[in-house]
Each structure stands twice: as C-alpha cells, then as structure tokens.
C-alpha cells in the first residue's frame, strides 16, 4: 500500500486524509518487525511513542488544524542525536545506557514539523568508520546484498531507508558518513554546508567537520527535510547567521533546471574509481551534457592530501571531544576500578572499541606538545589549501561532480583488518568536509552485481538549493532512485 511512496507523497496523503499517520506508522513498524532482524538498521524502535505522536497528528488533521511539513511521517534518526525518548548510544558500549536529558536541535525541528520518530539507527561507534562495522552494539547489512556493508557511519539510516523501514532518515557526515552509505544503499544523501544546521545535541566526533543531513529516497524529499532543519540556532555558535545566508525555499524552484549549467570535473579523479563506478559517473556526465551542460576540467592540486589532513584534524578534535566519556558522570563505568584513575582508564578501555581508541591515540599524539606544529598546524594549512582548490573550481563552474565512493558496497569483514583501506573508502567525500561546502549523493546506476552507485555533486557554501536542482535534473530523466532491493521478511 505504501511501498514506493516518497516522503512528500506520503505527507500529502496524510494531510489530505487519504491515509492516517497511524496507518503509516503501523505499516512502518510492521516492516521493521519483519525486515530489521535481517538488516540490523535500528538500535531502538519507539513503537508506543511513535503511535502516540501519530495519533496527535491525526487528531490535528481531523480537527482541521494546521500541521507541519512532515505531518505524520515516520522518520528514523541516527543514534548520535540526543532524543529524550530511549537511549542515545552513538553505537558505543560507553554510552550504551545513556539517556539524554534534552533533545537535539534537529530533533526539536523534526518534532515541531509534526514528524513521527520511529527509532534510532545503528552507526559506526562515534561515527568513526565507513561500513557501520565499528558499531560496538550491532551489525548492520546492506539491504541490496546482506553479505555486504551498508557503508558508514550513517549505515543504519541508509539501510533503513533502502529497505523502506522509514520515509526519511537523519544522518551525520564528518568525512562522508551521509553520502557514502547513501551511495552504497542507492538513496539520496545530502551533507549541507557546515553551519547550515545546528549541531546542538549532536554528539560530537570532529566538531569542525560534523554536519547533520537527510537521507531520503529522492532529491525532492531531501529539499523538504533540509527546509525543516536549516537555520540559525543561538545554542550553536558555529551555526550561520541567517542575515549572512538566508534559508531559501528549497522546494520552490526545485523542478526548474539550471540553464547553461557548468560542471567542473577532475578527470583523473573519476578514473581512479573502479570501472563500474567510473563508467556510471561518465554516463551521468553524458546525460547532463544532453541537458545542455558543459564540462569544465579543473585542477584540485591538494585533493590527495585530504585524507591525511582529515585524519589529523578529525582525530585531534575527537581525542578532546571523547575525553568526557570517563565513567565519572554518566555512561559506562568499569566495575573493576579501584580509584578514580582506574575509573578513567578501565571504563575507557572496556567501553571504547578498537577504531575509537586508534583515533583517540592518533589525535592525542597530533596535539602533543612538540608535535602540534608538525601535525595539527600543518593539517590546518592543508585544509586552507583544499578550501582554495574548491574556491578556484567554483569560480569556473556551478558545481563539481565526481563519484561518492571508489567502489560499490564491499563485503562485510573485507576491510576491517586494514584501517587504511577502510579510510580510502572516503577518498571522494572527505575534502568536502574539510572545505565546509555542501555535497549530495544521488543514485546514478548499478554495477554488474546490481549494487547501487552514487554520483556526488558538490557546490559552493550555501548552494544547496542549486545542488538539489542539479540533482533533480538527473532524477527527472532516470529511475535509479526509484529502484529498491528485493527483500524477504
């Protein structure tokens, strides 16, 4: 009944009284009950609470009262956003019992828009990873092939979307964590400009890189969600003043193609991807040419240094951000500690997983006296050069296009023993976070194993409206985004 509907269609149906929110939520909960045991996307499901929320929306509609833009819509959120319902674990043992006393800004926005939060999704521990295999709590698989990873770190949100276990999901993107799983799961994933959506209540990984964004089944839904979430929040000093960057109506001109679109490309970057990905990207560019777009070849001379710079900056910030998980105030406390130093060392040793420990150590080292200049300061300089690369590219074109990930979904366990191989999964996405610009991943094809492939469209800061229009142009002539995996519940 509801399968194949996108979020806007569902919202319209609920608003027009063709279906109740309760029915939509019940349908979703049933799907979760049937499918999620085989997928593992959700860490928690709020069945009763969701039904309560649905009833409230239904009552409003029945009474003819105005409802929000997400009226009655079942939405999933990544488990690193604070929500007073249930727990907020960040996929970590150290927060496995953590119940936040407040809602994240993004959660408040969803609730104010009359969305129904059905559950919280699995993720790489503290958003550190590209396959969701680093979750300390649960395994999540790719609905297209359950022997493969869904990508990460927002793998739970991407898998839930691809499996039709929600109508939209929120993820977070520090180095590709929305775009890469969206690509691997065949859905749309948008990482907005840094500062566009408040980070208040988002459990920090790399504070200067983290950004919340939507994972949806189409560009139109991404525009709807972004419109709800974007805007200044005085509780986040890094959220952008709307006088500097007003929030446009993302849906308003979404259907209008961009005339004389100029697309920047870095040919050697596209060629670095595996053949299926490379070919899909090239085919996508050909289609844009048919719309009248011109391709502009640009240089990104510092692109190759982005992974190195990222793993210094992100881990340095993480080493400090994660210092608070010490067993003293909340979260996991080791039962084996005898004094407060042991409360720290044992709680952290037992509570954090291997990848989190690796990154804390990396970051701690990078910030240590005597090494700060050589690592952290140098990484900041590289970051500026990468920003400059983007500025130069955007001086010549409206957007930059490249693959999202070098490969389609890889096998579970394939890269878990080789962190460097895993880090390379983000080679196309990381630089966007360093530059703070927006990027969107849209489905652009399938490989020979029928695994989805994503196309990445990157634009200047606060150009989300334009990026979405460019994405919509592609979507209007293709049906990759409408395809869904066959699932047995």
């Amino acid at each position, binding site marked *: 009944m509801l399968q194949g509907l996108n979020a806007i269609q569902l919202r319209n149906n609920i608003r027009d009284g063709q279906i109740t929110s309760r029915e939509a939520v019940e349908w979703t909960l049933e799907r979760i009950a049937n499918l999620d045991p085989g997928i593992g996307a959700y860490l928690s499901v709020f069945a009763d609470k969701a039904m309560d929320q649905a009833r409230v929306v239904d009552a409003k509609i029945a009474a003819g009262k105005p409802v929000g833009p997400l009226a009655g819509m079942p939405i999933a959120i990544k488990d*690193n956003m*604070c929500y007073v319902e249930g727990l907020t674990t960040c996929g970590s043992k150290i927060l496995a019992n953590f119940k936040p006393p407040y809602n*994240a800004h993004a959660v408040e926005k969803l609730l104010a828009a009359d969305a129904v939060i059905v559950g919280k999704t699995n993720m790489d521990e503290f958003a550190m990873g590209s396959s969701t295999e680093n979750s300390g709590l649960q395994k999540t698989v790719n609905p297209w092939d359950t022997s493969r990873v869904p990508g990460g770190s927002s793998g739970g949100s991407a898998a839930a979307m691809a499996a039709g276990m929600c109508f939209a999901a929120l993820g977070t993107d520090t180095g590709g964590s929305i775009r890469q799983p969206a690509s691997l799961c065949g859905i749309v994933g948008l990482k907005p400009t840094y500062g566009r959506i408040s980070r*208040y209540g988002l459990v920090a990984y*790399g504070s200067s890189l983290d950004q919340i964004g939507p994972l949806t089944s189409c560009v139109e839904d991404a525009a709807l969600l972004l419109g709800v979430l974007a805007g200044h929040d005085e509780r986040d000093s890094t959220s952008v003043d709307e006088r500097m960057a007003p929030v446009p109506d993302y849906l308003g001109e979404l259907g209008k193609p961009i005339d004389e679109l100029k697309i920047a490309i870095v040919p050697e970057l596209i060629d670095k991807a595996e053949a299926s990905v490379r070919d899909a990207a090239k085919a996508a560019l050909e289609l844009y040419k048919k719309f009248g777009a011109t391709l502009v070849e640009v240089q990104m001379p510092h692109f190759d240094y982005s992974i190195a710079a990222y793993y210094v900056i992100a881990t340095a910030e993480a080493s*400090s951000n994660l*210092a608070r998980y*010490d067993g003293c*105030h909340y979260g996991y406390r080791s039962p084996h500690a005898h004094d407060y130093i042991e409360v720290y060392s044992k709680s952290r040793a037992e509570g954090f997983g291997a990848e989190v420990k690796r990154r804390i150590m990396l970051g701690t080292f990078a910030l240590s006296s005597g090494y*700060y200049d050589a690592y952290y300061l140098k990484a900041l300089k590289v970051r500026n050069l990468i920003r400059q690369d983007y500025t130069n590219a955007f001086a010549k074109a409206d957007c930059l296009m490249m693959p999202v990930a070098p490969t389609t979904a890889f096998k579970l366990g394939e890269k878990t023993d080789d962190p460097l191989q895993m880090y390379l999964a983000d080679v196309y996405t990381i630089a966007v976070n360093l530059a703070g610009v927006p990027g969107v991943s849209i489905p652009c094809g399938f490989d020979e194993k029928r695994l989805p492939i994503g196309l990445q469209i990157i634009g200047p800061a606060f150009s989300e409206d334009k990026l979405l229009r460019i994405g919509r142009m592609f979507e209007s002539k293709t049906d990759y985004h409408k395809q869904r995996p066959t699932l047995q519940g």
Partner: protein
Amino acid sequence: MAAKVDYKVIVGLEIHVHLATRTKMFCGCELVYGGSPNSRVCPVCLGMPGSLPVMNKQAYEFAVLTAMALNCEIARFTKWDRKGYYYPDLPKNYQISQYDLPLSHDGFIEIPLEDGSIKRVGIIRAHLEEDAGKNTHELGNFSAVDLNRAGAPLLEIVTAPDMNSASEVRQMAQELQRIVRYLGISEADMQKGHMRFEPNVNLHINKDGQTYKTAICEIKNLNSFRAIERSVEYEVHRQLDEFLETGRTMQIGNKRTYGWDDVNQTTVLQREKEEAHDYRYFPEPDLVPVEMDEAWFEQIKSRLGELPLQKQKRFVGEYGLSNYDASVLTADKATAEYFEKVVQAGADAKRTCNLITQTGQKLANQNNTTVDKLGISPQNLAKLAQMADKGQISATAAAQIFEKMSQQNADPEQIAKADNLLQNSDAGAIEAIVDQVLAENVDAVQEIVSKGKKAGKAQGFLMGQVIQKSKGQANPKVVAEILSRKLAQISS
C-alpha cells in the same frame, strides 16, 4: 638561622577572579552561589554529550574592563582554546580557556605602599576561562562532585615577578580587590573564594660574590590577605633556611607547590615536582573567535570611570587630606562618592572625613553596610559638619547626632535642640561664668600663678568647673581660650 645573608625576595602572582555576571561563562545557568549540590547546572555545564558552549558577552566585557583598568593592551582578535586534563571536577575533561591569543596582555597595576610611595607591578596577561566544579570527600568510601560552580567565568591574571616583600604582595592583592570592586565586576570576597591568589615565591641570594636562585614555590589555599602575607613571609624563611642547609637551588622542573595551613601558620608541601603537564591546547572548534571593533572597545572603555588610586591621589590634592585618610575614604567607591557629595553640600573636607571615617564607618560596620546607605542625606551630614565647625556642638555630640540621623535622617539641628546638645559659644556669657569660677577658687588660681605651666591639673579643674556651671553647654574651646587669657592677665 642566624647567619647573615643578603637576599632579595621575588614574587609573582597568579590570580583568579570570579566575575559577578548574571549567568555562567558558556551556558544560561544563573550564577548564584550556594544551593544544594548539582542544582545549578544544565547539559552545557555538565558537559553532556552534544551540548555546545555559547560565550557570555557580559563576562567578556567585564574581563576587558578589568584589563583596561590594569593598563593592558586589549586584543582586537582573540580565540578560545581547549586545555585538556582529566579530573573529576572537570566534566568535559578539558577547560575552555585562552592560550596563545589572550584577550589582554602587557599591563601594570600601581600599588600604594604604606610609606606613601607607589609601586608598579607588571601584568603579563589577563584572560578568561571557565571554572571547574568541586570534589568533596566527605562521604566516606567515595568522593562526590558538585558542579554548581562548573562553568563560572574566571578571569585569570598573571603578574610579572615584580613584588619584593610579603607586604607588597598583600598590598597588591588589596589594591586589585579595590579595583575590581570599583568596576563592579566581582564581589571579590576572598573568604568566599571570589578571588584566589597564588604567589610564586623564590629568593635571589648573594653569597660569596655569587647570586643563587632558590626553586620557585607556588602557594595555594590562601583565603585572606593576612594569609597571603604570612604565607609569603613563611616561605621566604623556609627557602632561606633550606638554601643555607642544603644549598639547593633552582633547577628545571623543580618548581614545587605548597599549601598554606592557616591553623599552624605553615606551608605544607603538596607536589614535589611540577609534573610535566601536557595540556594539549588547541583552538576550541565549538566557539567562534571574538573580534572587537572600535565601537565596542570605546563602549567598554566609557564604563571605566575614575579608578581608586586616581581618586585617592585626587582627594589628597583637591581636599588636602592625608594620604591615609584619602586611602580609607576611597577603599569603597560608594563611600568615596558619598564623601564628595557631602563636601559639595558645603561641608569642610577634613571635618567630613573625620565624621565618615570615625563615626560613620563604625555605624556602617555595625549595620553591615556602607556609610552612604545609612540613610543620611549628604545635605544633612554637611549641616552636621558645619555645626561642629562653628562650635555649636561638641565632637561627642556630633557622634551622637550622627547616630540618631542614621535612625531617622532628621535635621541635625533639630536633634541637637531636642536632645539639648547645642553648646554655648557666646563669649560674653562664658566670660561671666569664668569670672565667677576664678573668684570662687582662689587656691587653684594661686597655684597656677606660682607654678605656671606645671599646674596643668589645677587648670583642668577650673575648666571642669566652668563646664559644669554651664550645664555642659559651654564650648570647651571657647572656655579654654577665655580661661587662658584671664589667667595670663592675673599672672602678669
């Protein structure tokens, strides 16, 4: 140690001042002292996952204002840094502070010394940071943390090692207290921990033509000005003794931390070696840098007003007061301003000063307030001063009337009349009484004539007789004058 050695005391101070802002440094929690443990907290000052700091603009302005008063260079661009260390009273396990770009640097403070001279002490830097909470160990088997204080705005001031005696250190602390109270940026009560002073003390000892430097020792737990002075004195002697006994001198990393034991009046070793702390400072990514434009700078500067030492100097020059009197009057801004209002209302400055510093401050202390809040209008106090000047009332009567005025703020003349405190200065009337007394006390007069100035007792007796006969209302000054003149006439 009896050995005579020539040495110089070197002291620098690290100071923390709690700013009296409405809310905490980075969250909206109201800054109220007390309350049951962990009752004045929110997700931000608890360091909850996902919480973010937002700078308190009032705290920043208070800090800049203080830095201006300390003659510092004010940075037009500053940022925040994280200082990382693990301690249970620090919820995030990092403190938001300022590292390489403090909001101010390179200033000085002028301290009035007891001999009337002015000492200048350099200020290396002053920056803002958040306070930690408090660990308590009163619960037997485990410790508890109270985070009510966590996130309170703290101004850290670091002075140059320019103080050379324990009393200079104490006077520096007192002058800083006077300044921050003038600025209204802190209650600056040491007992309540609003101000914390940590002296860094060492000695430069000249011995056998060589200069030896003793290891720097930092003293903590000082909660009174007296403790500051006593602890530095103690530390100076301790270091001198230690040097003479062991020859131990300053080495890299042998800085030690002592705590002051107020009961036994000694310093107690807390940390032997300054641990090689690596705070892993890095720029706080959750906050944006602070940029100060000229308009904001000028707006803060306009609130600076006259500082206590300036005021003190002006009182000496403008009102002819002694340095001591001026310092007592200017110790508290409201009192100083009240003094000036009374003088402007027509009172003599010295007389007003005496009334305020003697009777007024005694009354104020009894009522736990300041002189200006005793309920006496400057006009009424000026009138009282004028009455005393004209000899209409005695000094004792003035004090009595002062006290009454504080209860009812009535016209001092009415009180004097009602209480029969007006004194007689009518020379003619007094002369008649003097003549009568001289006639009735021939023996005393004779004694004075023969013994001259040695007969002070007899003269006092005559004085008392006159006052008694006037029922206590004769102005003693006038009586003394007439009596002396009459006796001189008799003697010659």
